[in-house]
């Protein structure tokens, strides 16, 4: 099949994104791993700056890949990202499950954080990218953006759902209840339902243009709501409970966390690219001129 070789220009197009992701991974966890084994490779940057660079470069790289993907025949970049993601998740999870020490108070249960926090960051990223796609589609049109919108909403819903489950699994041994109205988790639940609704909307609207415009509008409205929901639940909750939320992780635990974060990031980006292709193929079929009618004799 002709897609075995990359079309000309794909390599050049990938390079900036690959560089960004490489920088991100480097400062994200490679430096930490190397330092663990005694190498001094951090270019003298303080760890806060390293974390910031890793986060920014990671997000930029992922967004770059997603935006410049032409949703064409070649799936090589997406497949590579998925493979990289799986590897990072394997190694990161191994580290988190068997190498990292248990936390003082939470014991083994704390290890759930190594999947919970990465899922959280990436769910938010997916939704934010969906918001971007919606805005770009409304201002500029371009069916590729609608395809990307559909893909990132679906991935966002998947990750948000996982987030709620993980949160419940974490809460049970820690607080004794499956749900404790933690503002972050509650906001995620609301987000989940809101975006599920948008997916349902897409399913019920047949006209592709209406579907695209309406889901873009709905995405913008839902996304703007997220901070409002978060703050209102925070105030609402603070009157009743003083429980601390599954919060920030102390420094010594961050290698498995970062590796898993990148793992999910790469995996999610690859998945969005593949899912967008499905959407694009379907759009192509819907927008194609109708076949000539059968001759009526």
């Amino acid at each position, binding site marked *: 099949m002709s897609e075995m070789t990359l079309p000309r220009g794909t390599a050049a197009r990938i390079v900036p994104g690959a560089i960004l992701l490489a920088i991100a991974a480097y400062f994200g966890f490679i430096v930490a791993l190397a330092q663990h084994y005694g190498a001094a490779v951090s270019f003298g940057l303080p760890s806060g700056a390293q974390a910031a660079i890793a986060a920014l470069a990671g997000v930029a790289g992922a967004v770059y890949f997603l935006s410049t993907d032409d949703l064409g025949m070649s799936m090589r970049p997406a497949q590579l990202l998925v493979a990289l993601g799986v590897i990072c998740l394997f190694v990161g999870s191994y580290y988190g499950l068997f190498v990292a020490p248990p936390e003082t108070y939470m014991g083994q249960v704390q290890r759930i954080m190594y999947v919970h926090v990465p899922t959280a960051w990436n769910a938010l990223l997916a939704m934010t990218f969906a918001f971007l796609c919606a805005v770009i589609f409304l201002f500029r049109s371009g069916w590729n953006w609608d395809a990307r919108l559909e893909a990132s909403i679906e991935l966002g819903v998947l990750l948000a759902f996982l987030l709620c489950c993980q949160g419940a699994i974490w809460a049970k041994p820690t607080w004794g209840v499956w749900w404790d109205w933690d503002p972050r988790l509650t906001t995620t639940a609301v987000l989940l339902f809101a975006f599920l609704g948008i997916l349902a909307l897409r399913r019920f609207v047949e006209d592709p243009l209406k579907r695209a415009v309406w889901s873009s509008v709905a995405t913008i409205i839902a996304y703007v709501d997220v901070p409002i929901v978060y703050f209102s639940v925070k105030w609402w909750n603070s009157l009743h409970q003083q429980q601390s939320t599954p919060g920030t992780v102390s420094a010594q635990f961050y290698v498995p966390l970062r590796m898993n974060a990148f793992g999910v990031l790469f995996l999610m980006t690859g*998945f969005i690219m593949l899912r967008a292709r499905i959407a694009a193929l379907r759009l192509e079929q819907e927008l194609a001129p109708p076949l000539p009618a059968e001759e009526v004799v």
Partner: protein
Amino acid sequence: MNGGVITGGWAYVWAAYGLTTAALLLYGVTLIARLRQERARAGRER
């Protein structure tokens, strides 16, 4: 919880990791299946 320390809990950890892995794997598989299906349909239409 004794003295503020949670003992055991491996079951929950495995549950969380297992669920996440299973979900991502399943989703990936459905993606591949759906992609193949769409491509086959596009190929037939041409």
